[in-house]
């Protein structure tokens, strides 16, 4: 039951991503990417990860808002008559590279444990003694904020840097003069 549903949703995601990449209309491809993201949230639910499903749904909605802001606001005519020189070679080379990647991926996947039997060398200790040591029933939070708090500190740093970078790029220089007095947040 889990396997059949998982297979169906994964095939749906791959087809949706192919549509997102190949279609010419940008609004349709944004919607297709949204469908892939929501499919991923359903996969998280099927594979027993409720924290991740919540975060994935909310992050997907925020990503869609941001992508729509870019897609709707542009009026780009240069793409219609852009040069086609070298486009066929690029497409063939891209497909060949991805095929070689898949073949080598298949060779490497022989070493992974079979689906449904994870190795869990480190997680045995987290599961057996997590409740006794941290006293938090949510084991994912216990791992994230107690056993692996360094990684969370690193992630907070990365997000801070990315957001400060985004704020620095979109600063005052892009605005018209009548808005300089009433900007809410820099």
């Amino acid at each position, binding site marked *: 039951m889990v396997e059949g549903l998982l297979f169906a949703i994964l095939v749906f995601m791959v087809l949706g991503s192919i549509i997102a*990449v190949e279609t010419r209309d940008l609004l349709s491809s944004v919607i297709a990417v949204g469908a892939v993201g929501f499919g991923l949230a359903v996969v998280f639910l099927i594979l027993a*990860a409720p924290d991740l499903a919540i975060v994935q749904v909310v992050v997907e909605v925020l990503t869609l808002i*941001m992508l729509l802001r*870019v897609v709707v606001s542009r009026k780009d005519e240069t793409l219609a008559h852009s040069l086609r020189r070298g486009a066929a070679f690029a497409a063939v080379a891209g497909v060949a590279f991805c095929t070689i990647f898949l073949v080598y*991926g298949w060779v490497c996947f022989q070493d992974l*444990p079979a689906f449904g*039997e*994870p190795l869990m060398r480190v997680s045995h200790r987290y599961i057996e003694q997590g409740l006794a040591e941290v006293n938090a029933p949510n084991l994912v939070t216990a791992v994230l904020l107690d056993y692996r708090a360094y990684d969370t500190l690193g992630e907070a740093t990365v997000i801070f840097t990315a957001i400060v970078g985004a704020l620095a790029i979109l600063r005052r220089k892009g605005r018209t003069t009548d808005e300089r007095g009433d900007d809410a947040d820099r």
Partner: protein
Amino acid sequence: MIYYLLAAGLLAVGMYAVLVKRNLIKIVMGMLIIEYAVNLMLILVAYRTGGQAPIVTEQMRVSPGPFVDPLPQALILTSIVIGLALVALMVTLCLRLYQRYGTLDTSHIRRLKG
């Protein structure tokens, strides 16, 4: 095994978009698909057949059943939010580039020096 191959196929589609496409928005969407594929691969490795979500309830304290692996779930959680911050950065770059060059076609942007 087939699930790993499907996740690798999703990654290959995203890589194809980043390598071949010329529209900047398509490149951003390719990076987004690569990020989905990586999260998907991690959660596929973490699944245990018949396992439950790694949250201990009252009746499970006495007799715990099999849990899925909680360590990759913690890694994916941070990765999802970092992906959102990355998409924000890329979209702001696209907006600035469009304002500066008037086009989102990378072959045009590459030829215009200014």
